[in-house]
């Protein structure tokens, strides 16, 4: 009686061994490291040698320089301070075409790595880093689309010489006003043909005739979805330019984007860069009209009033020659003549053609560069959050067109080389399709992360030790069995977390601690049952059998209900709550395995199949 068949014992043993192997990578320490990435191709052996030489020159002790499978190079250090000095050395050594990022990498022996095993993925609260939650202003995306449509309709009507009074949009509806009905009907036909996305209706009001256009809900969704995807792409480009290893950029829900940068340490720079909308526009200066008139409120048709950075007013032509969207690449540098910071840009085909045509026609006339930035803020008005958009436009440089220019040229007038760098980066990364706002930020410094790990593991160990001592004293041999499976349970949790690469956070550690407390419950239930059976006069073997049998359904019921709570937590929770739910969920499943099957197997090995006079319980 009370013997598991051999296959069952072997199966349990196999699962536990499998868990041990999976948990193994967590035993190796994490090295501070720097990852080097080539913008195109692989980091060659020659580059690695050059890095090694540079480190030696700078007297930075390096643990190892490795070639990674993904074509990148990894430089390992023994101390974080070496890592930072190493970063400074790389800044000087590596030229254009390389990016490098601080990271941590477990120093796994070759055979562990060959098995493709990974340690647990630590959350930002444990390893340090920056987490931001970004809200995409979807309404603005739709408004921008409406603006594009009104512009296109205006052009269409003008090209077809249909006279209209006004084109505009109000409360999500495009309105085109006409004086006469036949004109309106002709226009409606034309617009319907050209803009199939719009739902076109007609009407009249106060003697005027209108064509209305609205965006059907499906189209609006499409626009919003596109804006979100485009923003994710742009943010990814921007983050990659920052040089952070393993950045996470993902969509959350309908309108949010999560950006997580492990190990990053400059939240101010990150936030500026993520939220920045800086772009450029090139316009001709209106020299025919008086600036003073415009200042007095009489802005001439086809012109607009701008200010330079020093506050000087200037009149610019309304028509834009080239916008930031048409810039395909940009690099920061210094102007060779003046030595001031500049950005050199390259235009796409259409932009280059426009630029050539306009500059050819206007040689000798001044052209202005407008620097545009917009931000979204949330204000509380009467207790309700209200979004507000602020757009600033400044003229950063005005220069006479000396000769026609085309695809590549320079723009100066920037305040600092920092600003030039940021602008170049933003132009390269592409514009945001809709304004964004950072609605949540959690930054954890690296030392606090380490403190959290230390405190977390210490509390797990001490809690575990207390429970282990109690169980051994109270249930003796059976208690020791429960203790053993409890430790196996911890290993299994670590194994599953490593296998799934689920993120372990501080609340996640709390979840593990809680499972430790609750995992013994299954064994307590079983052992109390066995004691009861003994009291009722059953033989030791029969008591063991009945104890495990009768407790089973109770254990399953009790655990299923906790699983329900864990699932609800996971689906409703964000960030910290999710981390807790994940480990709770995993912990319940592994504890059922270890506490029911694992402990039974051990008890069977100890007591099964022989005559037992009394149980040490």
């Amino acid at each position, binding site marked *: 009686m009370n013997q598991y068949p051999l296959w069952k014992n072997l199966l349990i043993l196999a699962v536990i061994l499998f868990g041990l192997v999976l948990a193994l990578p967590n035993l190796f320490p994490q090295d501070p490291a720097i990852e080097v990435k080539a913008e195109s191709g692989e980091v060659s052996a020659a580059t690695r040698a050059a890095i090694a030489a540079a480190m030696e020159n700078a007297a930075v002790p390096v643990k190892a320089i490795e070639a990674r499978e993904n074509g990148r190079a990894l430089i390992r250090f023994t101390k974080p301070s070496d890592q930072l000095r190493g970063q400074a050395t790389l800044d000087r050594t590596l030229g254009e075409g390389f990016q490098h990022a601080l990271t941590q990498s477990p120093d796994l022996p070759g055979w562990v790595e060959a098995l493709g095993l990974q340690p647990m993925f630590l959350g930002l609260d444990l390893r340090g880093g920056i987490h*931001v939650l970004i*809200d995409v202003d979807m309404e603005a995306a739709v408004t921008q689309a409406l603006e594009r449509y009104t512009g296109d309709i205006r052009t269409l009507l003008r090209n077809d010489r249909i006279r209209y009074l006004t084109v505009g949009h109000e409360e999500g509806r495009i309105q085109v006003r006409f004086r006469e009905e036949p004109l309106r009907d002709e226009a409606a036909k034309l617009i319907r043909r050209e803009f199939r996305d719009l739902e076109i209706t007609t009407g009249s009001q106060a003697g005027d005739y209108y064509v209305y256009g609205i965006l059907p809900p499906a189209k609006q969704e499409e626009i919003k979805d596109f804006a979100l995807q485009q923003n994710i792409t742009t943010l990814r480009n921007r983050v990659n330019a920052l040089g952070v290893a393993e950045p996470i950029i993902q969509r959350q829900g309908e309108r949010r984007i999560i950006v997580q940068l492990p190990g990053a*340490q400059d939240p*101010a720079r990150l*936030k500026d860069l993520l939220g920045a909308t800086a772009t450029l526009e090139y316009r001709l200066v209106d020299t025919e009209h008086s600036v003073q008139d415009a200042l007095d409120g009489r802005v001439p048709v086809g012109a607009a009033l701008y200010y330079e950075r020093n506050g000087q007013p200037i009149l610019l032509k309304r028509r834009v020659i080239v916008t930031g969207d048409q810039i395909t690449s940009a690099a920061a540098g210094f102007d060779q003549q003046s030595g001031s910071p500049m950005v050199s840009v390259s235009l796409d085909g259409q932009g280059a053609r426009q630029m050539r045509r306009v500059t050819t026609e206007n040689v000798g006339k001044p052209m202005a560069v407008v620097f545009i930035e917009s931000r979204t*803020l*949330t*204000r*509380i008005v009467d207790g309700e959050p209200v979004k507000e958009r602020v757009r600033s436009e400044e003229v950063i440089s005005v220069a006479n067109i000396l000769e026609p220019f085309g695809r590549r040229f320079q723009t100066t007038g920037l305040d600092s080389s920092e600003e030039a760098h940021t602008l170049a980066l933003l132009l390269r990364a592409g514009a945001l399709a809709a304004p964004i706002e*950072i*609605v*949540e*930020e*959690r*930054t954890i*410094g690296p030392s*606090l992360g380490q403190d*959290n790990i230390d*405190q*977390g593991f210490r*509390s797990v160990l*001490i*809690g*575990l030790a207390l*429970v282990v001592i*109690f169980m051994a*004293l*109270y249930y003796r041999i059976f208690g020791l069995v429960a203790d053993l499976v409890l430790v196996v349970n911890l290993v299994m949790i670590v194994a599953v977390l490593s296998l799934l690469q689920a993120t372990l956070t501080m*609340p996640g550690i*709390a979840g593990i*601690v*809680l499972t430790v*407390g*609750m995992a013994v*419950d299954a064994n*307590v*239930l079983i052992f*109390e049952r066995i004691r*009861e059976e003994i*009291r009722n006069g059953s033989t030791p073997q029969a008591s063991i059998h009945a104890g495990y049998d009768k407790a089973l*359904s*109770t254990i399953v*019921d*009790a655990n*299923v209900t*906790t699983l*329900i*709570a*864990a*699932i*609800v*937590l996971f689906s*409703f*929770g*964000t*960030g*910290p*709550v999710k981390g807790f*739910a994940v480990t709770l969920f995993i912990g319940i499943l592994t504890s059922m395995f270890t506490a029911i099957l694992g402990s039974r197997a051990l008890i069977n090995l100890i007591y099964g199949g022989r005559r037992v006079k*009394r149980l040490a319980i």
Partner: protein
Amino acid sequence: MAHAQILKESNIDFLGQRRIAAMVSGGLMVICLLSILFRGFNFGLDFTGGTVIELGYEQPVEVTEITATLANEGIIDATVQYFGSNRDILIRIAPQEGEEASAKLSDRVFQLLSANAETAIELRRVEFVGPQVGEELREQGGLAVLFALIGILIYVALRFEWRFAVGAVAALMHDVLFTLGMFSIFYIPFDLTVLAAVLAVIGYSLNDTIVIFDRIRENFRKMRKGTVIEISNRSVNQTLSRTIITSGTTLLVLLALYFLGGEAIAGFSLALIIGVLVGTYSTIYIATAAAVWLGVSRTDLLPPEKEGKVVDNRP
């Protein structure tokens, strides 16, 4: 048998005290509810929005100096306090209006204080939650508790019987209300991790309740004699030592977490400690009493066809 035992076979008339228990619990619930309604919670940053900044100085600093520096720059709603030692500073800033409501505020504060400090300051932690996110989290939190309760109600009703389900949920609501009430009465900071703990309390307390219900069902099937009250009492007593041991081991671990786990999860552990204590009480006094009061009877729990034989308990 010479084994260590916390309880000898007990035979306490728990259900006999159900009226006193109901009055005590009822009174407590009213107090908790009143406090939650009128006093409210000391909601943490997660729910109100705002900014928290934790800084590490190399030398001891004065809180008043930092407050003054911030006030000079118009940041007046800031609470500055020591966090662990007189070199560690925690600054809480309530949600601001307009420009200052953005995530940029923390950068400004850090720059300002760095410029005013003689040595470098370490930015240990920044948490910023925008006002709309705080509101969403409050809503989601309430929904999560509600859905957890509904899910459990359904599971217990399917697995046992509706009276047990109502009894279990009554005990759960009792525990949730009591835990929330303590946080309200003592005005303990209530953040997201506390909410997670409240949900864990639901899971834990239910765990306890299920164990007793399981035993009641088993005893109804096994014991031919005895009134509902007698059998219920018997079941509570039979599972009593298990209830106490499990609560005890869980509490051991939670106390380790509370005292050693650091500030970040102190609120979490406290909520669970309260929850485990009240959960143990409610399991014994509320859940069973509610089921009995609703008129649960032997026939409700007998397996429909296979009479006499103790069947496997799976549905």
